[in-house]
């Protein structure tokens, strides 16, 4: 468990995740209040990573549920293992026959089989999906529900139920309650506005692009062997690129990719030529690259 917000900052930093005290406070609160944390913000600012490093810092189990359109309960919660059930009935045919030995009527046979049906609808035949795994886990877990905005509105409604009680009822088995309330991190890119009901149940964290100093710290922490001078040039250039009117603004992940690329290329320092040659690492659209090339002068001193 995190002791206080400062502790969050330090332990995340050990995992090479640099965050401000405000972000840390929110994470700390999510842990203390046992509330899900909804993280929003532009692409590539470390929303998903936040969940991962929180798990690593706490040494908790990390369970991830990637959302997409069409994701439903059977993929997210649990599913019956039909094939296994079928297989077992085949293998156990003889036993079943014994069970049914000396049965007089059809009704009686059905009665006998019915007495055994919980054998086939037991935990043994349930395939737990991420949500159920998080609930059943012996160890405390961090559950990351990634890109929840990509899921359908119905799935969101279903999530509400799970997130508020942390228990699941499987009709054939009964209600399963969580041993440890997992720390839940939901991330959203705002492809769709999440419902108010979901937002009400969550703490909300808006991660934005970091300031120059923080980004520099991140680059230095995450890119081994980079010289400080180069790192600060990279950060400065990215900062300026973000101010151009672009289709896709580079996130921290792009900054890191770029810094790594420059290290691999043995770049001493960032001049116009190097920048122009490596632009495709940070910018993902031809149009953006052209625009950045046109503005090279503004980007590097």
């Amino acid at each position, binding site marked *: 468990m995190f002791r206080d917000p400062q502790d969050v900052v330090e332990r995340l930093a050990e995992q090479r995740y640099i965050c401000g005290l405000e972000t840390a406070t929110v994470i700390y609160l999510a842990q203390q209040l046992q509330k899900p944390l909804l993280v929003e913000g532009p692409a590539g600012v470390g929303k998903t990573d936040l969940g991962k490093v929180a798990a690593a810092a706490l040494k908790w189990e990390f369970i991830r549920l990637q959302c997409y359109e069409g994701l439903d309960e059977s993929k997210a919660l649990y599913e019956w293992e039909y094939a296994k059930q079928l297989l077992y009935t085949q293998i156990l045919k003889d036993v079943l026959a014994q069970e049914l030995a000396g049965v007089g009527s059809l009704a009686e046979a059905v009665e006998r089989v019915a007495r055994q049906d919980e054998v086939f609808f037991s935990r043994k035949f349930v395939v737990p999906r991420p949500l159920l795994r998080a609930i059943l886990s012996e160890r405390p877990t961090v559950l990351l529900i990634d890109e929840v905005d990509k899921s*359908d509105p119905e799935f969101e409604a279903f999530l509400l139920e799970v997130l508020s009680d942390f228990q699941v009822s499987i009709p054939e088995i009964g209600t399963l309650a969580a041993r440890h309330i997992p720390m839940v991190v939901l991330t959203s890119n705002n492809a769709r506005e999440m419902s108010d009901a979901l937002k009400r149940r969550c703490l909300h964290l808006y991660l934005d692009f970091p300031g120059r100093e923080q980004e520099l710290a991140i680059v230095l922490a995450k890119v081994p062997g980079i010289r400080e001078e180069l790192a600060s040039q990279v950060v400065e250039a990215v900062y300026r690129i973000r101010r151009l009117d672009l289709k896709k603004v580079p996130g921290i992940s792009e900054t890191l990719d770029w810094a790594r690329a420059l290290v691999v290329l043995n770049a001493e320092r960032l001049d116009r030529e190097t920048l122009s040659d490596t632009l495709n690492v940070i910018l993902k659209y031809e149009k953006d690259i052209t625009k950045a090339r046109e503005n090279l002068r503004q980007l590097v001193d």
Partner: protein
Amino acid sequence: MQERVLEFIEGLRGAGLAVSPAEAVDALRALTQVDFIDPASFKAALRATLVKRGRDLPVFEELFPLYFYGLGSGAGEGIPDEETLEALREEMGNGRAGERDGPASLLMMLMAGQGGEWETLIRQGARGAGTSQLYTRQQIGMYTRRIFEHFDWEGAERELEELLRRLEERGWDPQRLRELRQLFEERREEFRAWVRHYVEREQALRSRGASRSDRARRLMAKPLSELDEAELQLMREAVYQLARRLRNKLALREKQARRGRLDVKGTLRRNMQHGGIPFQLVTRRRKREKVELFVLCDVSSSVARVSQFMLRFVYTIQDCLARMRSFVFVDELGEVTSFFAEESIEEGVRRALHEADIVYYARSDFGSVFRQFRDEYLQDVGYRTYILIIGDARNNQNDPCAEALESMARRSRGIIWLNPEPRPFWDTGDSVMGDYLPHLKEARVCRNLEDLERAVSSLLL
């Protein structure tokens, strides 16, 4: 502090944020977990629990300092050091031996009061001065003065003189006495700033509380032709949200269609491989055709506003439609479908309203437009196609040419007409609505956003 947080929440609500009681409870619980003294985590805790939408953040940032001014720094700067305070307390106690347990004097409060005590004091003062008439920003100065002057400063100064005299008798050195007097002045100015802050906060609460929350609702009902520039901006956002909502609804319906009734034949066939044991169920799909839409927008100056919103609306829900073609017209028809397909919403709508291949400054002629549509585009209209016409049917005495509209109606699934004029005005002057009415599947008045939403959802749902 709790009370202050609740007031802050009240303020947020007044500014249009939907803060539920559950969230308020979360906020207070969160505050028990963080260090009060650290302003950053205090703020972070409130933000995480109360603000759930990016667009609400500016409101939060704006109101926060109004409510938590001077947080963590006590009541302003420069509280006298402990020794001086002790001397002050002692002397003042001596001076008013009989009233020791009575309320602390204004002077004492001023010199030694903490933030919360000042707050209470100001609140009392405000109650005395009365702030019920405080509405506009211009009144802030006046009310600040009024509340500030409500306090007995003369009394406090007299007391200060008295105090200084007695301290002098005790042998304080003149330099220190001067500093004390100086401090009094500084603290009084600080106090004035606090009063001002209090008034600003009250004003923000009142002016916004009344309007913001139902502004959106009023906007929905306000005739599109009467909007000013700021409202237009808000409106654009509202249209977008509306269209998104509609799209979500449509998507949901699509999903529900997939969960149809059990298809026995299909289930048996699918489960042959399991020896006829129905492990996988097959459901019958309800088929629902996607609507095709031809939109004809009058863009003559009289209805351009409504058309603009209609076009925006249609742009946003395009992907719910199997096919959509858009036209604008004044006295001839110009197709703008490609603008929508290629441009962003702003640019697409702008080009549709300015760059189609028609004369924009002509006089409307519906008859000739319908003739043109019949001759050039009717072949593309199918049995699934709705034709949506937006216009006021003011034909400038031209031939209405209702038979062209009739042939359009026959070939399509139906024509829906949205008229921005209220019904009593139809058929007055040069309006020829009556000639067209028999051929329309539906004719609606469409004066505001509500009408627009109703019209479009009845078309799609």
